[in-house]
């Protein structure tokens, strides 16, 4: 418990400094909010336009898919707020040797590497994505239990997404220029942003069992729509546990491979 509060206090400082940093570049602050809103609008409108011409995509109706997308957008927004900047900083820090300072801090290196930078403007947009999710959820007449389950499911999805990305980012320690890994990370996010049933059998199995990307969004939403699909949640929790162990091992190995560029 003591450790938990210690990390909470450190994180509070990280958030405070990120906010004051962001407020000194107000134009960028506003532009990030606009950029995110354009992204939501283009995603949701594209799907709405398709539904003007078809009644279902796979087994899902218009509002089922729009709820799924708004769930993914909400997740994406939390992810962008909490961790996304850190991936870009990590590739820079490894290349320039500034990662030394991350290692010197009196906290776990995964925590300081991936939670140091909080993207303040994106936190404002969480209001928009959560409102969208609530709007489309109400169109589907979700039950009280469903609404209660959404926050822990978002947390589980975030956990799985972060673990996959942390493992992927560890490969930056082996590369001269790790920025390309960030583009790969973004592409994997694109794959996970669509429900699993759109993919062919082999792709679906691969992206669920071997590289559990599709569990991020499909597992919680499929369970919300059909409570008999509890195996999705079980697979998701199993994936989180396995990837957690794997991350611990890979991260240790990666740190051993780090050659401080500044020393």
């Amino acid at each position: 418990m003591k450790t938990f509060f210690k990390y909470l206090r450190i994180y509070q400082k990280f958030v405070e400094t990120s906010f004051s940093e962001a407020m000194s570049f107000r134009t960028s602050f506003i532009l990030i909010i606009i950029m995110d809103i354009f992204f939501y609008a283009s995603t949701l409108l594209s799907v709405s336009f398709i539904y003007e011409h078809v009644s279902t995509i796979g087994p899902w109706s218009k509002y089922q898919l729009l709820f799924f997308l708004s769930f993914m957008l909400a997740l994406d927004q939390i992810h962008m707020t909490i961790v996304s900047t850190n991936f870009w900083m990590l590739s820079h820090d490894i290349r320039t040797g500034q990662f030394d300072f991350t290692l010197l801090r009196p906290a776990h290196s995964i925590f300081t590497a991936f939670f140091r930078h909080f993207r303040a403007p994106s936190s404002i947009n969480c209001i928009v994505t959560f409102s969208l999710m609530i709007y489309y959820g109400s169109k589907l007449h979700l039950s009280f239990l469903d609404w209660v389950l959404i926050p822990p499911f978002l947390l589980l999805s975030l956990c799985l997404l972060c673990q996959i990305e942390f493992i992927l980012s560890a490969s930056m320690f082996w590369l001269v220029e790790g920025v390309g890994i960030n583009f790969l990370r973004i592409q994997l996010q694109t794959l996970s942003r669509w429900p699993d049933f759109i993919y062919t059998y082999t792709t679906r199995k691969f992206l669920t069992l071997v590289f559990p990307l599709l569990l991020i969004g499909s597992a919680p939403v499929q369970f919300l729509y059909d409570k008999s699909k509890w195996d999705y949640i079980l697979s998701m929790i199993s994936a989180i546990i396995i990837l957690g162990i794997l991350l611990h091992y890979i991260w240790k190995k990666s740190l051993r491979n780090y050659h401080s560029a500044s020393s």
Partner: protein
Amino acid sequence: MKSIDKWIKTILISLNKVMAYRFNFFLQVIGPALVFFFVKYNLWNSIYAGNPEKLIQGYNFKEMISYHSWALVVGLLTQGHSSMNLSEEIRMGRISTYLIYPIHFWQFHTAQFLAHQIIQTFICTLTLCCLLFFHVCELPSALFFFQALQLCFIVSLFWFSLQYFAGLLAFWLEETWIIRVILQTLSVFLSGAVIPLELYPQEFVKALSYTPFPYINYYPIKIFMGESLHLFPALLTLGVWIVVIWFLNQMIWKKGLRLYTGAGM
């Protein structure tokens, strides 16, 4: 002659630079286009599930996939990423070196753009060969093919000038990547790269025809698919935009240079 030599040397240096980080280049430029195509293929496959002859706004499954495969080709041919580092160079004070180079800043970046175009044309040719081999799309007549290629080159010039413009804003803004992403998101959505414009509401498409967006993707794709479209409005609209942005860039460069402090000198 000396001037041409300067351009060729700069293009060669830029080619070497890109090839030195091949893995990054693949993940940054080729990867996104391929993944985007893969997702669209799967999405439309599930929409047409079991009924490939179903018509959605005039498109059966084969035509829809053909549309998206040409969208992949157009995307690879037109969307350069050469001016990505431009803003960083301004912010970090690296443009000081350009001021003493025997080549102007815009010339250097235009040469870099041409180098990227050479690589992307090569990659695009390989991609197209694969698509043709697997019968995902068909080649149109030579006339349509060269018309579409011509339009693609103008679109790539348009993109380059727009990205150059966004990069130059680094004289005033801390983060210019945000503007680039906004432009990218808007153009992908409004140009018919995600879904054909026939699927959009009619009023919306009518409004779009006053902007350069349909000419960025939809027009070249349709010409590649063998549809006879008037090329003149597309060339005129994009041409006017390129000239306007070019003048704007000259103005911003002059104003920005007065603000420039040459950090780190």
